[in-house]
């Protein structure tokens, strides 16, 4: 007799993880903080805060110049984070992991070091209508510099990429496809494996903006086969001023440096300067060493929780919030893709998102209001701005209820 198979839905001990995030214990305007602005930046677990302090307390020195103990210690801690990040995204080698100031920095690096070098008049760069400005403006700049053309794939009413338009706009003139993995304004998860496959089939490279994805969905750069993948530390429970640009070694080797300075050189004379090997060729100057140490601690924290269960929990929060918000009269939810992460953008009839934000803040609820650095998305929906609640695994059902109660207060005051 065989054993009956049961499907166990992973349960997530949200109270236990909340205890790891000290900032969540705060009161705001006399109410418990309900932090729903995670797409903007995430909060940090004690382990990350401790790693930052501990670094400055006992290991602080400049890196890669080790002739004394502290310098050796700092270098080890910094490079340890690099390896943790390599494993986090399943990169083949740690020298394919460039440590940057953040996702925006990484995309600008590719735009200038790759784009400026290789784009020519008549070439095309293909992005989408749901990109964050960090994956639009660097391409506008480099297209202007090189004479290449920028094209954008439209999205449908649900906020999903129109794949038939992507297929039409992807031509033999396309040199690079640069797409957002998860939309910060809409929560949409783009079909990036398909996008990368098709880009390669058309002879184009693929860069993926993973800023919103890294905290919520597993990222395997070898499986995705992206040529470049950029993300930020502060959006995945790590410190601000940190990030990763992953790039395939063969590509990075062919690119000239982005910024010049210390550490990225092999030798310097006024006649000729030669450059360092990867990844250091792209890491000029003293980096945010403490931040990178904290970034590594964030990866270790995430490795220590059940990420599958966390994802199920976030999906449940989104579903619960969506149901309750949709029932509030006069509310329109913006972005209802079939595949979404826990982002809920909405507008309220006759009430400006800015006013929604102020009333919610008064109830202790932190959301973002505005254009979310995605003006084309706003234009696409014919709106000026939205209010956006974004959930992380430390949010609770009580948070969702407080948020919706506060929405009713908005209607009471301003409706």
């Amino acid at each position, binding site marked *: 007799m065989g054993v009956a198979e049961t499907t166990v839905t992973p349960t997530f001990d949200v109270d236990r993880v909340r205890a790891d995030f000290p900032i969540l214990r705060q009161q705001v*305007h006399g109410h418990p903080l309900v932090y729903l602005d995670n797409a903007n930046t995430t909060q940090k677990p004690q382990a990350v805060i401790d790693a930052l302090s501990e670094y400055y307390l006992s290991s602080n020195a400049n890196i890669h110049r080790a002739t004394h103990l502290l310098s050796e210690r700092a270098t080890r801690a910094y490079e340890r984070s690099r390896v943790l990040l390599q494993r986090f995204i399943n990169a083949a080698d740690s020298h394919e992991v460039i440590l940057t100031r953040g996702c925006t920095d990484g995309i600008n690096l590719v735009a200038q070091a790759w784009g400026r070098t290789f784009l020519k008049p008549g070439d095309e760069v293909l992005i989408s209508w749901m990109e964050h400005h960090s994956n639009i403006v660097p391409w506008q700049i480099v297209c202007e510099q090189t004479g290449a053309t920028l094209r954008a794939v439209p999205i449908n009413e649900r906020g999903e990429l129109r794949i038939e338009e992507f297929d039409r706009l992807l031509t033999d003139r396309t040199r690079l496809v640069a797409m957002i993995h998860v939309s910060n304004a809409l929560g949409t998860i783009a079909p990036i494996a398909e996008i990368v496959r098709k880009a390669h089939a058309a002879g184009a490279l693929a860069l993926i903006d993973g800023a919103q994805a890294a905290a919520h969905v597993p990222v395997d750069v070898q499986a995705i086969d992206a040529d470049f993948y950029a993300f930020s530390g502060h959006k995945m429970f790590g410190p601000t001023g940190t990030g990763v640009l992953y790039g395939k070694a063969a590509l990075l080797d062919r690119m000239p440096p982005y910024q010049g300075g210390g550490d990225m050189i092999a030798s310097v004379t006024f006649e000729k300067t030669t450059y360092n090997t990867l990844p250091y060729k792209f890491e000029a100057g003293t980096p945010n060493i403490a931040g990178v140490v904290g970034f590594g601690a964030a990866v270790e924290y995430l490795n220590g929780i059940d990420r599958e269960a966390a994802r199920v929990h976030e999906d449940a929060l989104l579903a619960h919030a969506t149901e309750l918000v949709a029932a509030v009269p006069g509310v329109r939810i913006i972005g209802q893709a079939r595949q979404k992460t826990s982002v809920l953008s909405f507008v309220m009839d006759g009430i*400006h*998102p*800015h*006013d929604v934000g102020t009333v919610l803040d*008064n109830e202790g609820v932190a959301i973002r209001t505005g254009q979310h650095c995605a003006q084309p998305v706003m234009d696409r929906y014919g709106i000026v701005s939205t209010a956006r609640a974004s959930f992380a695994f430390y949010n609770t059902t009580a948070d969702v209820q407080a948020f919706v109660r506060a929405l009713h207060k908005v209607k009471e*005051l*301003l409706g």
Partner: protein
Amino acid sequence: MSDLRELYQEVILDHNRRPRNFRKLECADRTCEGFNPLCGDRLTLFLDMDGDRIKDVTFEGTGCAISRASASLMTDALKGKTIAEVNALFERFHKLVTSDPETPPDTSGLGKLAVFAGVREHPSRIKCATLSWHTLKAAVTTGETKVSTE
């Protein structure tokens, strides 16, 4: 909610729901657009001048309750004023909304505009209250036709 009642006073809520002088002025001899790129608030101010005196003033645009009410109350307060009086009013209003919330607000000479004293407690909303005023200042002094809060 008492703290919010200081910000969203009845006068402000009323002027948001039914903004006064909210239309295009066909015979305007001065027009200026104001824009706040942080939130997308946008307004166009229309002025009909009689020498250095404001004969009529209207506005159009989209914005939050604070910016709409501020534009509405501002246009009501401007009619018949000279440019010199307008500049003085701008200074008084700007000083009010940017003053330290710990100190008693100086509302002298502001009439109904005094209701914006509550904005001081909400620094993120100051630019909402001053958008129309910066637009006005540009229209009457520099003659610029487009201004931004940033």
